[in-house]
């Protein structure tokens, strides 16, 4: 059988890049972009005073308001990144208000405060912090959690 070195123009379908091969790639990219846009967040990466902080998980997707940030970490309590008190002390302290937070919070302007509590933080402490923020004059207090829609 004689092999042809130079074949003429083929009348069949074009070889190589075909529409059928590109379609799954377009589908995949579309799915990826939808998934990324679904979980897209304009917020900067979470930076907490104690390093990596595990936030509670929630079904909510409403972004947190801007305001004074109160962190309830494993070790301490922080207002806008500045340490204000000890978490273990105030978890067991008597009284419903955290006086170490009350002063710094009163010095802050605004009416919105967001509380970022570690997932394992005891409610007896987080509740006191929320109440203290409210008593310090912040009308809108919200708890920050990580949405389950995160990647």
């Amino acid at each position: 059988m004689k092999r042809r070195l130079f074949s003429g123009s083929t009348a069949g379908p074009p070889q190589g890049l075909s529409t059928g091969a590109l379609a799954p790639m377009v589908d995949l990219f579309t799915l990826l972009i939808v998934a990324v846009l679904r979980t897209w967040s304009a917020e900067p990466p979470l930076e907490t005073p104690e390093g990596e902080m595990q936030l509670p998980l929630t079904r909510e997707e409403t972004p947190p308001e801007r305001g004074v940030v109160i962190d309830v970490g494993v070790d301490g309590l922080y207002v806008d990144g500045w340490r204000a008190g000890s978490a273990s002390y105030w978890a067991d302290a008597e009284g419903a208000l955290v006086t170490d937070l009350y002063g710094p919070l009163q010095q802050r302007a605004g009416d919105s405060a967001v509380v970022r509590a570690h997932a394992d933080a005891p409610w007896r402490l987080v509740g006191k912090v929320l109440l203290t923020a409210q008593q310090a004059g912040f009308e809108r207090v919200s708890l920050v959690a990580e949405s389950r829609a995160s990647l």
Partner: protein
Amino acid sequence: MRRLFRDPAQPPDTRPAILSVVSLMVILLPMLLMTTNARKLAGLPLAVSAPGDQLPPIPPGPIETLDVTLGESGFVVRASVRSTDVLAGSGDVETRELAADDLSALQGVLRTLKGLDSKRQRITLVPGTDSRAADVVLWIDAVKQDRHGPLFAEVVLQSPQVRGPSAGTP
């Protein structure tokens, strides 16, 4: 001279159009992945009340108060329901205590109460002092919505009871 029979027309080549879409996505996807944050944060607006605090009035309905307390063996739902008995006096309120072992049972109880007073939005949660923040957020999600739809959107958290002096030093 016009031809009566033409050669069959070749279909248009769609590959350039698809290639341009693929190229756009190849550029767009890494940019999105680089500039977006994988952790999506959400804010849970809350009201906190000290024990004994008077809350702002809500629109009148059959249910006057609705509390969920974490007990030793699950949840206890306390609802003060205005009596609708024709023989009852004006302002008679019947207090019901309903137990729920887990979150799905709690949602079932709350769904029943929502059927009694569909306009009520407020619910008070009383977590245990040893409850974790993650558990409280889970309960907030559970009382706000179940698989049938929204339940009680306005969640009031009761702050922990004042305990005796047992504090250490900071």
